[in-house]
């Protein structure tokens, strides 16, 4: 089990600081909700952890492995960071079948076709393995994105508001799926949202992202609900 540590992380976009001096420790084996308003920099933080965006300052450490350090000029390529990522728009490859998406990602981790099929079954996509994303419903696409994220047996699972466009019933089943599958991840599962229902259903820990910095907070979504 490995924790994820962020030290003094600064990320700029177009010369403007989105994150400034972020410090946090995400505990292994737990689901942490990252709460913040729209535009607070939640997705930017996930992109920085995944290596899809290069911070200007700070360190990102997984267990004892330094994934990024500005001072030491370490910047591990995204595909070596062992990260499962469910994108906000899911980012499924339009030309590949469900099975191809999962098998292609999992192959590096030794996942064979049978195991890829089993993974699809575990997220409820039995009999849909040979369909392309455009042939799946919204909820099925979410499940496929989760299966793809887990295919390479990631050390960290990042979810960037993936359920923002599905109905309530589908959401409930997806919460259940995340609760069931996230313990399989060796490190933390980080769920970005500004939806209190998502947070309520998934959070074991929570952080508030505000003004470019992170702080541990106990159920920050309840404050907002109370304010409302």
């Amino acid at each position, binding site marked *: 089990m490995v924790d994820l540590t962020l030290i003094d992380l600064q990320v700029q976009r177009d010369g403007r600081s989105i994150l400034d001096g972020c410090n946090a420790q995400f505990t292994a084996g737990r689901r942490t909700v990252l709460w913040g308003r729209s535009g607070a920099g939640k997705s930017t933080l996930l*992109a920085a952890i*995944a*290596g*899809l965006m290069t911070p200007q300052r700070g360190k990102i450490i997984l267990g004892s492995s330094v994934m990024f350090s500005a001072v030491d000029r370490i910047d591990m390529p*995204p*595909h070596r*960071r062992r*990260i499962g*990522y469910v*994108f*906000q*728009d*899911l*980012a*499924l*490859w*339009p*030309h*590949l079948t469900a099975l191809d998406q999962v098998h*292609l*990602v999992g192959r*590096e981790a030794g996942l064979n076709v049978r195991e890829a099929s089993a993974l699809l079954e575990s997220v409820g996509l039995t009999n849909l393995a040979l369909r392309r994303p455009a042939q799946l419903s919204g909820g099925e696409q979410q499940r496929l994105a989760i299966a*793809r994220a887990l*295919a*390479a047996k990631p050390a960290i699972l990042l979810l960037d508001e993936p359920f923002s466009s599905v109905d309530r019933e589908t959401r409930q089943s997806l919460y259940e799926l995340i609760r069931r599958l996230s313990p399989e991840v060796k490190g933390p599962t980080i769920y970005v949202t500004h939806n209190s229902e998502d947070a309520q259903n998934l959070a074991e820990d929570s952080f508030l992202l505000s003004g470019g910095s992170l702080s541990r907070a106990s159920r920050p979504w309840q404050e907002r609900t109370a304010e409302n």
Partner: protein
Amino acid sequence: MNSVDGRRRHLARILPFGILLAAAASPIAALLTRGAALGQIDLSSIPGTLAFALSAAAVSATIGSAVGAVIGTVDVMARRLTIVMSVTLMAAPPAFWWIGLTRLPFGIGSLSGPASAALVTGVTLAPVTLLLVLAASREIPATAYEAARLFLKPRRRIVAVLFPLLRPAVLAGFLLTAILLLGESEIPFLFGFRTSMTDIITRFSRTFDVAETVPLVLPLIGTVCALGLAMWKPLFTVLFPQSAGERGVILRPASRPIALITALLPVVVLLSLAGYAWATAGGQQALTRRVATWLPTAAISVTEPVLSAMVSVGLAVLAVYPARRVPAARPLVVAGLLLFCVPAGIVAIGWIALAQHVSGFSVAPGIAYVSRTVGLCALGFAIAYSRLPRTLDDAARLVPMSPLRRAWLFGLPLLAPSLAATAALAAATMLADRDVASLLLPPGGSRLMLNLYLLSANAPTAVVGAAALLVVAAGVVVVALAGGLPLILLTRSRG
């Protein structure tokens, strides 16, 4: 409104476009009609022509897709300049660049045969595929490629995600290049081998009988149409966006060896121009008087393509604008594309056939240029319109004024940059032409590109260099004028 009324209205809207294309195709129809009586088909040169065109297109698609994939996915130094320099290769025919390379002090001018020609033309036409691959890379959803960066190693990312998503662009680039090469005549002459187009021009020059060329023209047009029909679907997949939203690969910094790949095409441009400059440096004094005699030719060589491109774009806009929202116009856009794919030399011979059939009037090259490029301009308009948010047009339709005024005030200004680019491309193809000028100009008539080819055969090397540099200068002026005029005309203050 019932469905019959709706169909009638749609038909009325696409009718001007149909009439324009029919008029543009009339010389080809006249040519084929004249030769149909002979009832012969000469297939002897088709295998060699196809072998040359397809092998050169394969080289071109390989280089173009590799360079395009790099420029489309990583942030290389001086990216825009690299793209502009690479695309410059398309502003002149392959023979122009090759003649420049042969003037360099180190000897690469001894190459001959179809294989060498395929290599040379493959490199110089690589920007065709490059541009399509760049366009396709801008249609890849950003996060889909980010996901590939995250989940897959570089080699697997390229093989399993990038190239499958770029496949339509590579295929369209390959086929479009092959089609352009089916009409190529100068490179085969320079490298000493025959193709259908060289045979057509040779036979016509010997007999001046248009009907004699038809047995050769017919299979060539058939081949062009077959490749064109295979091309339109992948091409339209690239050119007409499938959906809206944040799109395009997010560029990441490149490693130096990868960035070096992108320098290949600019280096070819610079080497060729250096060859001409080197050649010119030898005889500056003798050149001054000679260049002065070329100035009238330079003036007409600039004016003709600019005016023809303006007419071509203007006609295309007038004909296609009413049909812009009619789905049935799409097959006509394909037909326009096919019309552009017919080699320029065949269009010129077609105009001669039509002129002989009617009353023996002479046809100005500009008319042939317009008839060939009007389909290209219609395609340019359709692409530009498809990329506009539909709501902009809807909002304009709510304004109470005549459709013509509405188009002038709201529709066309939004399309101005694309129409300018289309006009510049059409004008560049006209300036680069040799076949139409050599077939349609009256005795004594001259154009810069035609002169360059004639001079390259036997004139002193300094003269060839000077003629080429004059072509380059004319090319810059032509592209600037043809691209600038629509912008000025369509975006000037409407107050």
